[in-house]
């Protein structure tokens, strides 16, 4: 467990100070970049909402942290169905009399889970494929890149629909379907970047002192392409969330975990889209804001990765 320290730290204290310094230099990127700051702020807000969405009970302390949802997302209101916003239900109710705001808050979690897991896995696979492909070259490169080409030939959403129809609608299967496609762009970009690093003297000298392939790839080359990996991770979060929302909107979402896309699907199947604006707009705006925040952050990272963009400003 790491501890947060707000007081200035003497450089002599070592690791913690270095760590904070590192974070500080990374955050400097966002200085003077309004879009990036807005993106970070929105993302952190969603993170907090997602974490504190439902009540927690810490048993050994006998402590319950209340959740943010005013009602149980599945509970039916005493009042009525399709109620417009009121004090008790700030965003109204659904056709089943459920509280829209509570569903919206609970849905944040699904978005966070899909976004982070799918992006992490996709970028993890993509970076490794790109790294191995470029480093070894020859037939390894040929085989891996032909596989990447083939994946580029598969239409994203239709493939995800078919795969989820086969494996069943669960969050895990949706993430698998997204990852199987999403790794391709990272693989291509990392490969071309590694190709240029492979020629540089530092790799040659590492080889000369007898470093192993694994060591050269992961200790020497990887840190140099890592900023690019982060950039693609940010975009991958956005695409993964859009893909999950689209799948859920089409009715292939996980029936046990209500996501924002599924809320809109419910509005559609209830034939309430014409009147129930309070039910259809909040989840749509939430999806848009979330994806916007990661794209804004991605734009800021892009300027770090590609210094030419900075000079053009």
């Amino acid at each position: 467990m790491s501890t947060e320290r707000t007081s200035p730290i003497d450089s002599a204290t070592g690791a913690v100070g270095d760590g904070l310094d590192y974070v500080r230099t990374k955050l400097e990127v966002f200085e003077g970049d309004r879009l990036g700051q807005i993106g970070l702020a929105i993302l952190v807000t969603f993170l907090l909402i997602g974490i504190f969405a439902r009540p927690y009970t810490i048993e050994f302390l006998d402590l319950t942290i209340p959740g943010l949802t005013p009602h149980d997302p599945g509970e039916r209101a005493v009042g009525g169905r399709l109620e417009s916003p009121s004090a008790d239900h700030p965003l109204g109710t659904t056709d089943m009399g459920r509280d829209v705001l509570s569903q919206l808050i609970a849905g944040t979690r699904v978005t966070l889970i899909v976004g982070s897991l799918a992006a992490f896995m996709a970028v993890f696979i993509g970076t490794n494929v790109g790294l191995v492909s470029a480093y070894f070259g020859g037939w390894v490169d040929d085989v891996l890149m032909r596989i990447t080409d083939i994946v580029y030939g598969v239409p994203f959403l239709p493939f995800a629909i078919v795969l989820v129809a086969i494996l069943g609608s669960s969050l895990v299967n949706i993430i698998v379907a997204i990852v199987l496609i999403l790794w391709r762009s990272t693989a291509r970009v990392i490969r071309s970047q590694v190709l240029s690093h492979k020629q540089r003297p530092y790799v040659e000298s590492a080889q000369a002192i007898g470093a192993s392939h694994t060591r050269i790839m992961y200790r020497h080359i990887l840190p140099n392409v890592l900023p690019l990996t982060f950039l693609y991770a940010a975009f991958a979060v956005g695409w993964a969330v859009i893909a999950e929302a689209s799948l859920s909107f089409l009715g292939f979402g996980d029936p046990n975990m209500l996501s924002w896309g599924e809320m809109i699907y419910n509005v559609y199947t209830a034939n309430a889209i014409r009147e129930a604006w309070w039910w259809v707009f909040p989840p749509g705006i939430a999806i848009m804001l979330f994806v916007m925040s990661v794209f804004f952050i991605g734009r800021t990272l892009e300027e770090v990765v590609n210094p030419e963009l900075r000079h053009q400003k």
Partner: protein
Amino acid sequence: MGLRAYVARRILQLIVTFWAFFTLLFVLFRMMPGDPTSMFIMDGMTPEQREQRIAELGLDQPLYVQYVEYARQLLTGDFGQSFIYRDPVIDIIVVRFMNTIVLMGTALVIAYLIGITFGAIMGWWRDSRFERGGIVVTLIARSSPEFWVGIVLLSVFAFWLGWFPSSGMRTTGGELGGGFVARYGSADFLRHLFLPALTGAIVYLATPTLLMRSTMLDVLNADFIEIKKAEGLPERTVLYKHAARNSILPIVTVMAIATGAAMGGSVVIETVFNWPGMGREMVNAVNNNDYPLAMAAFFLMGSVVIIMNFIADLTYVYLDPRVEYE
């Protein structure tokens, strides 16, 4: 490697990709839950009839025989019979495919025309308020899933203002003209086309705009632009005739790829607007276990993506002789 060798290699790669895609389809659709005969059992089929049906479909043969048979059928354009419509799949899918092409084609043309112009102006007026605002607007458009843009347009223009119809491709009971122009040129059709096409245009606008802007910035740094300016040519001429024209190259490649990607977008947009295209048909087919229809739709979409990627690569080397064929 010369151009000729590159093209030959790329064609070989195309064939391999097609083969892989096609095998993937075979595997996926053999894994589909529920036996294709289950639909007919509900119709009161006896076990003997059921077995006969399985034999008809060739599902009692060993897998490799099924695979070869499947390859032969796809190559001859024989996709079998739809379980729901009880018509040959090919007849259904051709009509749907045309509807999708008209919708997504219109959307892409609008997106690229506006995107290229908008991006060129943004690059020209760099550091202006217009540029900064433009970037934010394009990023917001890019962050919105297709269905969300569709719902917003639907709520405003169809439900609230009532200017456009909310679903379908033509008013029910409307005349079904014979020719292409009568079919896709009527005022009624265009009124139905407007909102879904605008949805696609908004979503696909971001890529050409941002790309055009960044290539414009590169081109504007080049010496020949300074020379043209020094020659005393009007700004407008330099912008459109020299700078913009030289920035268009990467857009052509991206456009071919976007056309393929739009196939996926059609699934969502057509569902929102009830557009009788291939995407919506695919969703319906998957939901109803109509495998032959779902597979044909998926096959066609994948083919468009693969062919478009191929065209993108070829136009790129054709347009830019400096490209190295690696």
